[in-house]
């Protein structure tokens, strides 16, 4: 019985929409356009966040870092108090599910000389075999990557290399002043010059094989173990497993989202701006659809009078107009998502290179990441807006005096 009535309602609505084809089409298209604009904006920003997130993880923080407790707050001021044990202690890391690779890092600062010129640097020792392997993690702009068998190679940040006047193949001297054990220096050969996402980092950074860093600092451990996963979504689960497996008094486990402050802030700022765009689109759809629904009601005053004169209840009239709004919303929303999908394909095909965002060195390719969540949200907004927009006219229609309404029939 219920479904029969629903079917009848849908039937009437469809007929009404078909009867007023042009108006229905305009209404549907304005919803579709608004929804497409919203979904494209959302999808573009989702892609930007995704790309930015993966780049941040691969090139800067890895998915998870294991350190001595409070290393991130106090380690730089007193690095020798926060040394991790030998690499053999980290062997269980590699056994965990979802772990793609891991590597030790040893941080140090010192002076780098080439000929007469000396500059200070912030350096890190890493394992070239497992760490910073892809082009996305570390982009070499001149020379080559460090090979695992070359303990005397060194990579220079782009800005640092420029200031030092160093090219691949040049010999440089690394000087480190260790409290306690005094100065130590090694000679190294510039293997390559890298550019990371951050210009400020490139202006003062060097990377050396971990053996060289250990030789400089006269230690055998590391400051952090960087763990790379197969998929960012597994971060929380693996971090949890690590925390369970490691003694909390000796080790601290942090995930990339606890470390990547810049990423978190950029996301926060963009969210705000996106909310403004969303509100504007929402309001314009509301006004546009409200307009259409209003016209529809006014024009059909006579029809409404006839309906009510035939004994149809006010609530049924209200429901019918609301349902018409909802149907326009669903159709427009679906069309809008479809349109957004097509725009996404077009944008992919055009391979649009975007300029680098503030304080980053690298641009990125614009893409539209249309996740199911974004599509569902757009569809939901479409239905809610159109129903809201038809609320007032529908209510007005159902409040009409039957006699007055009938008299409007010319």
């Amino acid at each position, binding site marked *: 019985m219920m479904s029969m009535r629903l079917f009848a309602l849908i039937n009437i609505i469809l007929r009404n929409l078909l009867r007023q084809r042009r108006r229905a089409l305009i209404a549907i298209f*304005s919803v579709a356009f608004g929804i497409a604009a919203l979904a494209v904006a959302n999808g573009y920003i989702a892609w930007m966040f995704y790309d930015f997130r993966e780049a941040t993880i691969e090139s800067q923080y890895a998915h998870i870092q294991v350190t001595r407790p409070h290393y991130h707050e106090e380690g730089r001021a007193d690095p020798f108090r926060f040394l991790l044990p030998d690499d053999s202690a980290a062997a269980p890391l590699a056994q965990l599910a979802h772990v793609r690779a891991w590597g030790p890092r040893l941080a140090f600062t010192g002076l780098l000389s080439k000929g007469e010129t000396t500059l200070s640097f912030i350096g890190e020792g890493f394992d070239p075999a497992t760490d910073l392997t892809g082009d996305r993690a570390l982009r070499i702009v001149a020379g080559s990557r460090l090979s695992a068998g070359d303990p005397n190679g060194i990579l220079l940040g782009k800005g640092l290399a420029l*200031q030092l006047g160093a090219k691949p193949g040049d010999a440089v001297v690394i000087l480190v002043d260790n409290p306690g054990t005094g100065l130590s220096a090694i000679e190294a050969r510039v293997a390559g010059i890298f550019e990371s996402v951050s210009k400020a980092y490139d202006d003062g950074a060097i990377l050396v094989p971990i053996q060289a860093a250990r030789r400089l600092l006269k230690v055998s451990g590391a400051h952090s173990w960087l763990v790379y996963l197969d998929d960012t979504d597994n971060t929380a689960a693996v971090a949890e497993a690590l925390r369970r497996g490691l003694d909390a008094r000796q080790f601290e486990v942090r995930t990339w989202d606890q470390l990547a402050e810049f990423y978190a802030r950029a996301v926060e700022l963009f969210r705000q701006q996106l909310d403004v765009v969303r509100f504007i689109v929402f309001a*314009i759809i509301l006004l546009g659809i409200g307009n259409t629904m*209003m016209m529809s009601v006014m024009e059909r005053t006579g029809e409404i009078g006839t309906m009510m004169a035939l004994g149809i209840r006010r609530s049924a009239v209200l429901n019918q107009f609301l349902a018409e709004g909802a149907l326009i919303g669903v159709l427009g929303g679906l069309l809008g998502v479809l349109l957004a999908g097509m725009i996404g394909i077009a944008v992919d095909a055009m391979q649009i290179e975007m*300029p680098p965002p503030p*304080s980053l060195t690298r641009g990125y390719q614009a893409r539209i990441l249309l996740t199911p969540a974004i599509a569902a949200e757009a569809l939901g907004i479409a239905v809610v807006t159109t129903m809201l927009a038809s609320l007032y006219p529908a209510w007005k229609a159902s409040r009409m005096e039957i006699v007055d309404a009938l008299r409007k029939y010319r």
Partner: protein
Amino acid sequence: MRCVNTGEYPMQGLLKLALRNIFRHRGRTAMTLASIVFGVVALILAGGFIEDTIIETGEATIRSNTGHVQVARRGYWEYGSQQPERYLSDDVEDLRRQIAAIDGVADVMFRLSFSGLLGNGRSDWSIIGEGVEPEREARLASYLTVVSGRRLTAQDRFGMMIGAGVAKALKLGAGDTASLLVSTPGGATNLLDFEVVGVFQTFSKDYDARAVRISLAAAQELLATPGAQLGVVLLKDTAATPGVADTLRQRLTDKGFEVRTWQDLDLFYNQTVTLYRQQFGFLTGIILVMLLLSVSNTVNIGIFERVSEFGTMMALGNRAARVFGLIVTESVCLGLIGSLLGVVIGTALAWAISQVGIAMPPPPNADQGYVSKVLIVPGVIVLAFATGLLAAVVASLLPARRVSRMQIAEALRQSV
């Protein structure tokens, strides 16, 4: 000669008729106006907000560190600070007098920068140090806040201010002693102890992470040189930057100097501007198309309700062109009224919002949040007005053409 699209009547008659038609359909007119007004207001607010962000970013850049214009020996920015031949001159006072004589210049200050290691006894941190003239810098750096301790003075021969990032890395605070290791241009290394007098924070976290400031005299002693490398020019008004930079280039290029403005120096500012311009372009596009659809919706409905009216007009001898003109005029009136209303409301709102201010979170590279305003920008207002009007006019063209081409008999038959 007769004007074609006014038909039998003068233009004035058309306008009057159009206005009457608009006010006859009060509900519809209100809805359409609401869409146009909303779109125009949204554009004015968004545009004003973005303009404010851009200007604010610029001022933050200038007032944190860079100043309006910088002067250095040619090649300084490419090849860095280490080569001794990059020094400005031994007699910086003479250069200061030359630059200060230029109209619009408020002050000129000199800096001597160096790269070194700052140590706390347990660890070192790679820093970029600057010898500065503290009193003059204080006038420039209104965006530089002292987090703890005090500002540097010219009397501090062995005092230093350090960036918040440096202080955090080495766990140093006001009153602590730190050792500074630098290599002099001659190739020797020099180690001096300094007392931290204050910790500062600017708009750029990257800068704070490595910045150390000592007095120019102390830096000259440390590096064993009487000179400086960088002349920083503070202007009375940011808008005068290109003019002063041009004057400086004319006078100094021959003498082996290079002149850069704050916009040339700060990558962050340029990237921010590009990003915001893109966003605003996207928003304008959306609003334009949404308005187009919204207005064409109203116009369409209005027109098809009034087909018999137009049929009657044409049957009475009005030309098709006049019907076309009437419909378009109605839309133009709607667009004008809506856009004007939008401009008035948008400007008033922008003013009101600016009185209160919008609290913004800190940008990704900074620690300080700020209060944003919505500027009233003539360019944005013109753009918003034009967008509203354009949407209204374009939306009416197609339906107007269709109606004016109808067969009179058929149009008349539409009346029930």
